[in-house]
């Protein structure tokens, strides 16, 4: 067998450009973990079933074990390491997981956090049923789904509160806006 050729690729992960050389068969999950040292992305099954390896590719959740690193060239990848603010402040979804005991052993957590981050951007006011559908592709071996669902709903609440505060702080509009924003957040 011939030695597989290496591909020189540039990956943008969490806003940082990384240059690396990989064989075509390198899975994105392995590239993130082994080549870039971003071990927050976890690998469970490597056939798309468990969801632990989920990252955001151009803002959309995707299985990093079902993509080759060469396919991600030119895409914006966000891993769990990229969810917190640059100063380390945890994102609303991360805080809600801590608050509601959505974390057990933590193995599945990165996948849940990335999926929910994208989901709550698209659907800021989900029902419990919609949350369950959104995380239906993620398995938690500790089987603590109750608290994970509660954390997702709490995260939605925090995000709405934050948005309301932003609108109040901005203070523009017709004057009725802060009131409306607060009411909406409270619902």
């Amino acid at each position, binding site marked *: 067998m011939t030695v597989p050729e290496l591909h020189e690729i540039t990956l943008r992960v969490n806003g940082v450009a990384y240059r690396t050389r990989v064989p075509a068969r390198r899975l994105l999950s392995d590239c993130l973990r082994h080549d870039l040292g971003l071990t927050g992305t976890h690998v469970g099954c490597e056939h798309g079933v468990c969801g632990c390896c989920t990252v955001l590719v151009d803002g959309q*959740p995707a299985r990093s074990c079902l993509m080759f690193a060469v396919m991600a060239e030119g895409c914006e990848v966000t891993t769990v390491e990229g969810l917190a603010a640059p100063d380390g402040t945890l994102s609303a979804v991360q805080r809600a997981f801590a608050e509601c005991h959505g974390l057990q052993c933590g193995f599945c957590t990165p996948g849940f956090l990335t999926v929910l981050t994208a989901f709550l951007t698209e659907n800021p006011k989900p029902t419990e049923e919609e949350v369950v559908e959104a995380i239906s592709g993620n398995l938690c071996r500790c089987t603590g789904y109750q608290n994970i669902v509660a954390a997702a709903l709490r995260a939605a609440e925090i995000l709405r509160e934050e948005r309301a505060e932003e609108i109040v702080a901005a203070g523009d509009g017709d004057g009725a806006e802060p009131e409306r924003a607060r009411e909406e957040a409270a619902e």
Partner: protein
Amino acid sequence: MKPPPFTYHAPTTVGEALGVLAELGPEGKVLAGGQSLIPLLNMRLAVPPHLVDINRIPELAYVRVDAGGVRVGALARHAELERHAGAYQAVPLLRQALQLVAHPVIRNRGTTVGSIVHADPAAEMPAVLALLGGTVELARKDRRRTVGAADFFLGPLESCLEPGELALAVHFPHLPGRTGTAFVELARRHGDYALAGLAAAVTLDEDLRVAHARAAYVGVAPVPLVVDLTDAVRGVSAAGERSWTLAGRLAQSEVQPEADIHATAEYRRHLVGVLTARALHQAAQRALPEPGPDRTETTP
């Protein structure tokens, strides 16, 4: 659980892709969303020497609604088709079925054309294509051809795609007026492949009685199995709560389910009966004319 080595090609136009595929012949395999192919590689169930990645060919990324129905390019993701309002209006069965295809995250990358070429007898979109009598557009360097669903699926994971061929698009024709559709299945967990299921279409006559009913089954035959159920339900009133079990029984006599680790053949046959009745009832309800629009709800 790591993929075997392969040579990677990333053409940026259809012409370039067809050139590479022609050169590679049986050595080349198309990589679309990778949601079926990469698991097969990771499990070493497939060992293709060359992969031709079509993800850099933007001209294949489209969903178009035309007078005849919905045309879906090879790079349109399940999620894009699912969200497409025009496609839903023209062929509601598309969204009804896509909601049952895997999980939302898989649908973000998996393509509808890839799912059809993959020809898994448990997959939803091949059954949709079969029920609607849709077509697949195939291209080779020196030839293009359009194949109807009835000739496209040859067996489990086997379509009539030849080495060197690229599926450019699939076309889902829309159904005549007063026709309702439904996709009903039973999976062990929502998003998993179904143990058994069907896409159903029911057409009503002017008196809102069943004029025509047919279904395409998943998980109970080597290819999507289309069965005409009209004889069992002709004249049934769509508005009534009348039982549809006769159609279920007719369907049971037509399918050839197999047993596997998840279900016995007998259980699958039982499911076919129950799910058929449920799907036809739902499809018939949807075929009824909509009650007039509520004036207060209309937006300017």
